[in-house]
């Protein structure tokens, strides 16, 4: 088959060049047409009245959105843009769409509440979330297809983050219900956010401290491998709420028995059981990836190192660790994201953290309070994932990158 076209081009169906982009676009448009973009309620506890996209947004706003959708639709087709150009155009149009949706919502809230009672609330609807997530996924997809360097990706992401941050700082969202909740809970929010980070940190530190040597042990002693992974797998299968609950009784007994432990804050509820449970959940991925990382170092490389006269310690630090590091850090990435999510549940046993807002909101049926806990948790997980991904790439030795 020598029809003169690049192999990648030949695979493309003649009608649609980028199925992912088109699917996302259709989903976004359907969502916008059928689902409420925002809701207006007389107070925070009552469910509001739904508002569609064309009602909520000013004509120039939704017409611009429609125009951007048109451009993106052209990007999904084989004509008029060549494949690479289409991806770059997507990288230009999708963030504009995202910012316009964000701005539109804030702008609508500001306008709608101008002559309403101070208890009235505007919150975001399903169509809003769809219109936010679709362009983000379009950007991710375009990056993947372009296969461009990490530096450029990072720069783009940080740039977009700064612009969104500036939107927040400008006060355009202040009228939104979730931001009102934030304003009401500003001090607690900062405290709980920091508690969340502290819980994650206090769990990951010991998990690494214990997990890395255990992973190495699993590599060095095949007999220890089976039982070790058996136990860790068992931890992983216990549902998180059950594990938190199971730890309450023994820890409270321990706290009673040893007053100095109680003085340190160890008791049936609070941070101690949460941290212990998080450590138990984090161990398996850390140990497994550490083991896999070390097992992936070619045996001949290690034999050569021994034959050259390296000591066991030199082999470990100069050969095995550098070659295993990317896999170990991938494990860290998994547990970090996992721990950020699990810490939410820890709020149930009084450990605090962003989960506190979620459960408080669920109790009061105040969805915006739930979101005040959920949205920052998601953002935290995404940011941590992104940063650790960069670390994984950087940790790859120059020769193997």
């Amino acid at each position, binding site marked *: 088959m020598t029809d003169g076209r690049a192999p990648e081009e030949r695979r493309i169906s003649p009608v649609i060049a980028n199925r992912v982009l088109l699917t996302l676009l259709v989903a976004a448009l359907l969502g916008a047409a059928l689902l409420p973009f925002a809701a207006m309620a007389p107070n925070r506890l009552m469910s509001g009245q739904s508002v569609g996209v064309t009602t909520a947004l000013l004509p120039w706003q939704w017409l611009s959105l429609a125009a951007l959708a048109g451009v993106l639709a052209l990007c999904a087709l084989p004509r008029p843009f060549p494949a690479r150009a289409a991806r770059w155009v997507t990288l230009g149009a999708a963030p504009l769409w995202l910012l316009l949706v964000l701005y539109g919502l804030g702008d609508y809230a500001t306008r709608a509440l101008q002559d309403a009672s101070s208890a009235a609330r505007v919150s975001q609807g399903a169509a809003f979330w769809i219109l936010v997530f679709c362009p983000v996924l379009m950007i991710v997809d375009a990056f993947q297809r372009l296969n461009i360097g990490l530096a450029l990706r990072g720069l783009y992401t940080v740039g977009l983050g700064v612009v969104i941050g500036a939107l927040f700082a400008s006060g355009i969202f202040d009228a939104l219900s979730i931001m009102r909740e934030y304003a009401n809970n500003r001090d607690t929010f900062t405290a709980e956010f920091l508690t969340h980070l502290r819980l994650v940190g206090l769990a990951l530190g010991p998990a690494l401290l214990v997990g890395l040597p255990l992973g190495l042990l699993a590599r060095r002693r095949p007999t220890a491998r089976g039982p070790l992974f058996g136990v860790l797998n068992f931890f992983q299968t216990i549902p998180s709420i059950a594990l938190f609950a199971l730890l309450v009784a023994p820890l409270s007994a321990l706290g009673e028995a040893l007053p100095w432990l109680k003085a340190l804050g160890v008791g049936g509820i609070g941070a101690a059981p949460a941290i212990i449970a998080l450590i138990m959940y984090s161990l398996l991925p850390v140990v497994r990836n550490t083991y896999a990382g070390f097992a992936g170092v*070619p045996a*001949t490389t290690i034999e050569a190192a021994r034959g*050259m006269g*390296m000591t066991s310690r030199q082999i470990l630090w100069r050969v095995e660790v*550098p070659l295993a590091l990317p896999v170990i850090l991938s494990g860290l990435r998994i547990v970090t994201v996992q721990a950020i999510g699990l810490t939410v549940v820890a709020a149930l046993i009084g450990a605090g953290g962003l989960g506190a807002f979620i459960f408080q909101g669920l109790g009061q049926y105040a969805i915006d309070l739930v979101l005040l806990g959920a949205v920052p948790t998601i953002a935290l997980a995404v940011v941590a994932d992104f940063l650790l991904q960069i670390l994984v790439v950087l940790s790859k030795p120059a020769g193997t990158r």
Partner: protein
Amino acid sequence: MIELQGLTKIYGDKAAVDDVSLRIDSGEFGVLIGPSGCGKSTTLRMINRLIPASRGRILLGDDDVTRLPAEQLRRRIGYAIQSIGLFPHWSVAENIAVVPGLLKWPKSRIAERVDELMALFHLDAGELRDKYPHQLSGGQAQRVGVARALAADPEVLLMDEPFGAVDPLTREVLQDELLRVHQHTRKTIVFVTHDMDEALKLASRIALLNAGRLVQYDRPIELLTRPADDFVRSFIGKADLGLKLLSRRWVHQYQQHATVQDASLAQTGYTWETDAEGRPICLHGGRLNAEDREQRTEVNQEWSATPGMTMKEALSRMVWFRVMVLPVLDDQGRLIGEVTMHGVMGQQPCA
């Protein structure tokens, strides 16, 4: 000098290496050969103590190797293996510098040594110094592996089937280079292979092992002409024994005077035509059949020999061109003699 005394390795109740004693003198190229599982690799790896010996002694010079700390011992012994085992996260220069680095040589001396070794192995330092192993060809990687083994100027070089994984063409080139480096450095080499042709080409001494026991330890020519028993005979292979022998004979041993521009064709049946500088242009005659006597054969790269060429190759060239004689040329391409089919057939190769 390396001496093995009653070296034995027992796994379970089976002896993988059984009471092997041999001595490889300084500057010798010793080859351990034998079928798979004969214990040749195990023997090699006991020398640098990657495998501990069950019984027996190994002397490196005057030192018993078990008296030295293992790491110090290994830094005195170069080690090259089949899969090369280059460190994938280090550049070529960093790989070569490993042992000098472990020995804490000053940086400038290490850099000099790396350049020196890359030049010795015809590796372009400017191009390859900062390349990583995955960017090298198989032959280049293997050269780097051997250069790395030689980096700290070890007393002894151990090589475990180092050319087993490269294509035959590259293997040939690497063997020639190793011979050249051996002549240049006069290192004591212990080389493991299962390929008899490789052993015959490289070795000054061959140790043939079978089922853990040393069957015969001799110069290559003796192994071929005076095999100790039927196992040796069958391992060498009877089919091309004559050619194998010729692979240990050299053109200069068979070289005769060449007759130039002599009209008396009747006597030899052929004559050489040379230019003013004494470079041969062509040969008249020299064919098997008398009626081809007037046929000219152009002298060129393919149809000529050098004094250092093996007789096996010289014979092959004669056969290929169907000429009974082959010109021997010096460095300048001048005719210094000839080897003939009569000469090959008339001389006892075992002598």
